[in-house]
C-alpha cells in the first residue's frame, strides 16, 4: 500500500481538475433548464404580443344618409324588401361624401375597401330593427377593413417603399385625415367572441370553434369518464392477478397511451365514418376519437388513485360484511375520486389541444355557422388555429395568436382546477 501522505498529495493534485469538471457539469444542467424555460418564455411572449391586439378592433366613424332612393326601399316596405335593400350603396355614398373628388378607378376601389363588408350588415340590422330610420342621416361606427386595422395597430411601416406596402400613399392621406379628426377608434373586439369563421379576417371569430370544442369535449367527457373509471376499477379491484387476458389488457392500455394520436384519426376515419357511418366533421365523431385517445390516460390515472387508497380501508369494509362491489362504491371510489378527477381533467386538457386526429375525420372544414348540437358540422379551436395559421393575411396571424391565447386560457383554467382539486383533497395515508 502506498504511503499516506503520498496519497493525500495525489488526491489534492487531482482536486482542481475534478472541481472544474464538477462546475462544468453543473453548468450544463442549469443551462438545460434555462434553455427550456427561455424557449417557453419566448414562445409565450411572442404569442401574447402578437395576439393581444386582436382583442381590439379599429372602428371608423361614418355619416350615412339612409335615403330611400339610395336604399331602394321606403320605411313601409315589408321585412324581406328591407333585408334586400342596397346598404352597400349607402356605405359607398357615405365614403364618397367623406372623401369627395375621387375619380381614379383604383382609388375608388380602395375607398370602398376602407370599411369592412360587415358595415352593410350592421346597417341592415339597424334598419330592419327600426325602419323609421329610413330617410334620416345617421352617424355610425363601423368596422374598418383588416388592412386599415393592421395599419392602425402599427404593423405597417409607412417608411417602406410604396410598392411593398399594402397601404398606398393616397390611402395614408385619408387615414391621417381620419385620425386627425378623431374618426378612428380602437374598441374591444366583441365580434371575435360572438361570430364564426369568415374569409374576411376582421369578421372572423372563434365562437363556432369554441362551441365545436365544447360539444366535442362534452361527448368525450360523457364517454371517457365512466368508461375509464369502470375499466380502472375492474383492473385494480376485480381483475384476477396473473391472468393472461388481464395482462394483455394492461399491455394494450400502456401501449395505446403511447400510440401517435394520428393513428387514432385513421381508426376514426376507417371505423367510425366508413364502417359505422357516423357523420363526418361532427363533434360526435370527434368526441368518439378523442375518447379513445384519452381513455388510457384516464384509466392509468384512476388506477393510480385507486391504488393509493390503503388496503386497510377495504379490509375494514369486508370485515363489516360488505361485498366487493359495495366496498368499491361506498369506500374506495369516493376516497379515490379527487385523484380520478384530477387525472380526468388533465386528460381532457390534452384532448382539448389535440389536433392531428381531428384533421383526419374532416374537422378541417370551413365552418361559419355556430354548431347547435353534436351532429352539426363543426370546427374545433385547435383546428381553427391551424386553419387560420395557413392564411397569409397579417390580420389572420394576429387572430391565430389570439385564438391560441383563448385556448391556453382554457387549458390554464383546467390545470388550475386540477391543482386545486389535488391541493384541497390531497390525503397522505
Amino acid at each position, binding site marked *: *500500500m*502506498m504511503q*499516506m501522505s503520498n*496519497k*493525500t498529495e*495525489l*488526491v*489534492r493534485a*487531482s482536486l482542481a481538475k*475534478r472541481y472544474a469538471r464538477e462546475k462544468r457539469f453543473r453548468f450544463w444542467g442549469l443551462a438545460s433548464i434555462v434553455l427550456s424555460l427561455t424557449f417557453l418564455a419566448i414562445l409565450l411572449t411572442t404569442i401574447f404580443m402578437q395576439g393581444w391586439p386582436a382583442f381590439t378592433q379599429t372602428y371608423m366613424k361614418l355619416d350615412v344618409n339612409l335615403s330611400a332612393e339610395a336604399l331602394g326601399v321606403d320605411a313601409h316596405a315589408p321585412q324581406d324588401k328591407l333585408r334586400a335593400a342596397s346598404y352597400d350603396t349607402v356605405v359607398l355614398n357615405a365614403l364618397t361624401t367623406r372623401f369627395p373628388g375621387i375619380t381614379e378607378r383604383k382609388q375608388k376601389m380602395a375607398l370602398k375597401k376602407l370599411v369592412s363588408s360587415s358595415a352593410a350588415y350592421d346597417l341592415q340590422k339597424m334598419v330592419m330593427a327600426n325602419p323609421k330610420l329610413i330617410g334620416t342621416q345617421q352617424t355610425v361606427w363601423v368596422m374598418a377593413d383588416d388592412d386599415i386595422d393592421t395599419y392602425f395597430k402599427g404593423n405597417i411601416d409607412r417608411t417602406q417603399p410604396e410598392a411593398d406596402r399594402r397601404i398606398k400613399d393616397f390611402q395614408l392621406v385619408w387615414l391621417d385625415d381620419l385620425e386627425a379628426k378623431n374618426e378612428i377608434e380602437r374598441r374591444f373586439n366583441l365580434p371575435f367572441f360572438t361570430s364564426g369563421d369568415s374569409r374576411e379576417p376582421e369578421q372572423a371569430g372563434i365562437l363556432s370553434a369554441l362551441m365545436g370544442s365544447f360539444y366535442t369535449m362534452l361527448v368525450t367527457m360523457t364517454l371517457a369518464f365512466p368508461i375509464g373509471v369502470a375499466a380502472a376499477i375492474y383492473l385494480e379491484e376485480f381483475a384476477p392477478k396473473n391472468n393472461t387476458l388481464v395482462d394483455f389488457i394492461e399491455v394494450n392500455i400502456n401501449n395505446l397511451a403511447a400510440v401517435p394520436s394520428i393513428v387514432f384519426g385513421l381508426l376514426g376515419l376507417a371505423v367510425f365514418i366508413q364502417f359505422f357511418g357516423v357523420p363526418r366533421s361532427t363533434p360526435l365523431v370527434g368526441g368518439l376519437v378523442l375518447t379513445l385517445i384519452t381513455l388510457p390516460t384516464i384509466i392509468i390515472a384512476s388506477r393510480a388513485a385507486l391504488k393509493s387508497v390503503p388496503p386497510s380501508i377495504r379490509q375494514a369494509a369486508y370485515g363489516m360484511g360488505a361485498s366487493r362491489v359495495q366496498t368499491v362504491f361506498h369506500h374506495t371510489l369516493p376516497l379515490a375520486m379527487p385523484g380520478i378527477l384530477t387525472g380526468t381533467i388533465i386528460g381532457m386538457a390534452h384532448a382539448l389541444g389535440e389536433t392531428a386526429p381531428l384533421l383526419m375525420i374532416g374537422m378541417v372544414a370551413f365552418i361559419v355557422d355556430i354548431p347547435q348540437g353534436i351532429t352539426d358540422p363543426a370546427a374545433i379551436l385547435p383546428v381553427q388555429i391551424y386553419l387560420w395559421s395557413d392564411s397569409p393575411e397579417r390580420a389572420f396571424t394576429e387572430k391565430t395568436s389570439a385564438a391560441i391565447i383563448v385556448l391556453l386560457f382554457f387549458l390554464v383554467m383546467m390545470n388550475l382546477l386540477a391543482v386545486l382539486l389535488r391541493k384541497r383533497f390531497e390525503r397522505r395515508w
Partner: protein
Amino acid sequence: MNTLALTNNTMTLPTSKDPSAANSKDQAVDIQAIVEELKHATQPVGVPFLDDPKFYTRDVDVFYNQAKQAIFGVDLDIGKNEVIAMIGPSGCGKSTFLRCLNRMNDTIDGCKVTGQLLLDGEDIYAKEQDPVLLRARVGMVFQKPNPFPKSIYDNVAYGPRIHGLTANRSELDDIVEDSLKKAGLFNEVKDRLQAPGTGLSGGQQQRLCIARAIAVSPEVILMDEPTSALDPIATATIEELIDELRQSFTICIVTHSMQQAARISQRTAYFHLGYLVEVNKTNTVFTNPQHRLTENYITGRFG
C-alpha cells in the same frame, strides 16, 4: 471456525447491582429529567479524552433544520488504530455523529454542524478543508451493503480511479487484489472479477464494500451498523475482518449489538437522546458502567 471471534472477548454482562434501581418508579423514565441532567453535565462520564488523538471533537451540535437538533454538545476523542464502538437507543444520534466525521452530513439539505472537529489537528469543517479529500482519508461502510451496479473489479477500483491514485492498469490491479485480500473476499471472487458486484451474497457484498473503502487506503473507516443486514456467519466473518483491519486503520463502528461492541472494540461510547453520556474502555462500560443511563441500557431496561 467462527467461535473464535466469540470466545476472544467473552464477558458476562452485569445484572443490576443495585436492586432499588430496578424498581418500577425508576423504570418510568422521565425524559424531561434525563435531558435536564444531560444538559448540565459538562463532559461525558468516563475517559472521553486521549493524548494525541486521531479525531478531536468538542462541543459538537448538529441541526437537521431550525427545529430539529440531533446532537447536543458532544466532546469525544478517538484514538489512532483503535476500534471505538458507538451504542445507544435508536434515534439517539449515533449515525448523525458518525456522519459528521467525514462530512457526509453535507449531502443532506439544511443539515448544520457546529463545534470543533479536528482530524490530526486539522479542522474538518474549515473553509479550506475539502470534503472530497477528507472522505478519501475517512472512508465509510453503510448499514445495507451498497455495491455499485458495476463489476466487482470496478467497484473496488472506483475510489482509486476517481481520485487518480494509480498511474497504470497494473498498479490498479494490484490495489484491487490487495484490497479484496484485506477484505477477505479475494479467494471467493478471484475467478469472476468482471461479474456484477450486485450478484454476490449479502455478506460478500458487505465485504466488497469494505474492500472498496480500503482501496483508497483511508486513515479511518466509519462503519454504520455494518452487520445488521447480515446473518450470524457473515457477521462473524466481518468481525474477524475488523479485528485485522485495526492494524492499519482507525475504525469507528455503530452497532446495536452489545455483544458485537464487546467483542471487537477497545472503547465504547454511549449516546442518549443526542447526548454523549459515557465513554470508556469497553470492558469497563460493560462490566462497570458509571452512568445510570448506560447501566439501564446495557442491562436491557430500555432501548
